[in-house]
């Protein structure tokens, strides 16, 4: 039987807090973008709309990633993480990370900063990581089914 530890509950609380925070931050982006833009030394103020759109879409993507993590954590705490649903969640997280990679890669060509490149690389690694985990979970489900049907 799956043993729950304090770490699992703390991780779940952190994921939950981050999820609700990301919703709040994403909703506030259109209202705070101009102020945020003022802090960054952009050469051209006409980038404000593109910057706002980029941050807003990033916020939506992060919220979606955290939502999928939240759901997967629930299955982990229930003691049955190796399900086809979780394989689907990993696929969705991988696709979302790839979308983020594309956004920040495009931004690298429009207005290059080292931070943008780092973010693009991190999300590319995240995409590959989630794709690998998806395949690992698929195989684990096969082993689990095989074991369950061994009398």
């Amino acid at each position: 039987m799956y043993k729950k530890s304090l770490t699992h509950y703390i991780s779940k609380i952190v994921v939950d807090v981050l999820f609700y925070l990301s919703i709040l931050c994403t909703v506030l982006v259109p209202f705070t973008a101009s102020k945020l833009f003022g802090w960054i030394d952009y050469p051209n103020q006409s980038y404000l709309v593109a910057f706002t759109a980029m941050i807003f879409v990033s916020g939506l993507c992060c919220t979606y990633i955290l939502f999928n993590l939240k759901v997967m954590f629930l299955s982990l705490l229930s003691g049955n993480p190796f399900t086809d649903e979780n394989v689907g969640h990993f696929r969705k997280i991988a696709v979302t990370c790839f979308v983020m990679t594309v956004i920040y890669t495009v931004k690298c060509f429009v207005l290059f900063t080292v931070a943008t490149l780092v973010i693009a690389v991190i999300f590319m690694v995240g995409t590959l990581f989630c794709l690998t985990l998806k395949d690992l979970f698929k195989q684990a489900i096969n082993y689990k089914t095989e074991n369950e049907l061994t009398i």
Partner: protein
Amino acid sequence: MSIVVNLDVIMAKRKIGLMDLAEKINITPANLSVLKNNKAKAIRFSTLEDICKALDCQPADILEYVKD
């Protein structure tokens, strides 16, 4: 599937029900039902031994290979 489990035939011959056999060999009725209905992917030798002991038969009485 190529391996057919004829457990129901032997159980009928020995006049023993699913629940009784499951209790005798110490596995759940659900698992025994999976085996009886040819849904199992594998069987442990220990389980096969227990079934043969309980039903006083040979593995060949329970398992049959059928060409596809």
